[in-house]
């Protein structure tokens, strides 16, 4: 079971190309999970204890807006990382994450992984170097959305 998860972890873009023992370390903290349509993977305000390596299906990150219901602020899909707050700050989730379709993930126990990272700084640094670009990429994407690229007068033709 653990070996199967290690292979899945090693094949996920977040960890692809890292030494096999890194995948084993992550797999030791991980398990397969499945979510039905509309099921919450993470909930706003809850402790950020488990993050997910998405394998199949799409997930909507939502924020509740009084009077407007659930607003989708971003969607994630297969091969993406769901959950960053486990690594920084308050370690509480800042959004809900809802399955838009049947979703399969490798769920990773963040505290377990962080303990291993603290004990093995080489592993910890490798982990940080893989998560940081995801954060930068999402920050850049957010900045581009702030530009309102498709607003009046911004398009071709």
């Amino acid at each position: 079971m653990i070996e199967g998860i290690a292979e899945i972890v090693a094949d996920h873009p977040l960890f692809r190309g890292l030494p096999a023992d890194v995948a084993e370390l992550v797999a030791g903290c991980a398990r397969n999970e499945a979510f039905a349509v509309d099921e919450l993977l993470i909930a706003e305000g809850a402790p950020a204890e488990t993050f997910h390596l998405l394998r199949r299906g799409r997930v909507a990150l939502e924020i509740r807006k009084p009077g407007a219901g659930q607003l989708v602020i971003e969607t994630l899909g297969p091969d993406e990382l769901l959950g960053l707050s486990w690594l920084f700050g308050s370690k509480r989730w800042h959004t809900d994450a809802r399955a838009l379709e049947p979703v399969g993930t490798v769920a990773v126990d963040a505290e377990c992984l962080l303990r291993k990272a603290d004990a093995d700084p080489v592993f910890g640094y490798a982990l940080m170097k893989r998560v940081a670009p995801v954060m930068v990429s999402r920050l850049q994407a957010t900045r581009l959305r702030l530009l309102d690229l498709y607003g009046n007068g911004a398009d071709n033709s």
Partner: protein
Amino acid sequence: MPAARGGADGTSLYPLAYRVSWRRRETADVVTVALEPVGSAAAAYRAGQFHMLTAFGVGEVAISVSGTPGTPGPVEHTIRDVGAVSHALSHAPEGTVLGLRGPFGTDWGVEDIADRDVLVIAGGIGLAPLRGAIHQLSRRRGTGALTVLVGARGPEQLVFQTDMEQWRERGANVLCTVDAAAPGWRGDVGIVTTLLARLTLDPQRTVALLCGPEVMMRFAAADLVDLGLDPGQIRVSLERNMQCGAGICGHCQLGPLLLCRDGPVVTYGGAVADLLGQQER
């Protein structure tokens, strides 16, 4: 890249009379207008080229052809109502006579990439100049894969949704995303380049066609280069202040390029990569 057409024969500075055959509203501020010649017809166009359209008494503006080359019937242009001329064109009732010059500029070079995997990335009304090329590419048989990524401000601003269904039925992988959505939207939210993470591209086989806001194209092209695409295999559609359409007046100059003649479709890389995002003269 095919050679530029139009502008060299001296006659393209004079508009031909075209009549509005029909109009179709795409979104709240985008309309597709179909034009048929009153007398002489303009030369055949290729996907990616543009016409100069005149609303008599108002002005002239460059509009990309959104129809499919070789399709019988009127020529389609999809126009966003953003100024006086585009307002007049997009509100012209059926039967109105407009002026048409062209076609001008370079095209997407669909014939050159018939056997390649093709990735199309379009933002907003930038899908219009690509629509004809996508129709042509989606009709290929037994050749490369076709992937179409579309970004828009919101679900209500996604254009050509019927066309997207046709492309899917023909085997294309069509993904849409919006910057912001109201509750109830079940599609994707995020900028169009985030969809690249869901694709498995063969960089050696893939040609990319990009059209949309220049910032979007600049970031998309950079992401594609990071994924291993040769900049020479990325084609972008650039627009500046097209006026004469014939490479004479210089209003559309971007560095060494006169985009009405050397563009709008140019190969990304080298000077173009540096020029993307520069202010027009």
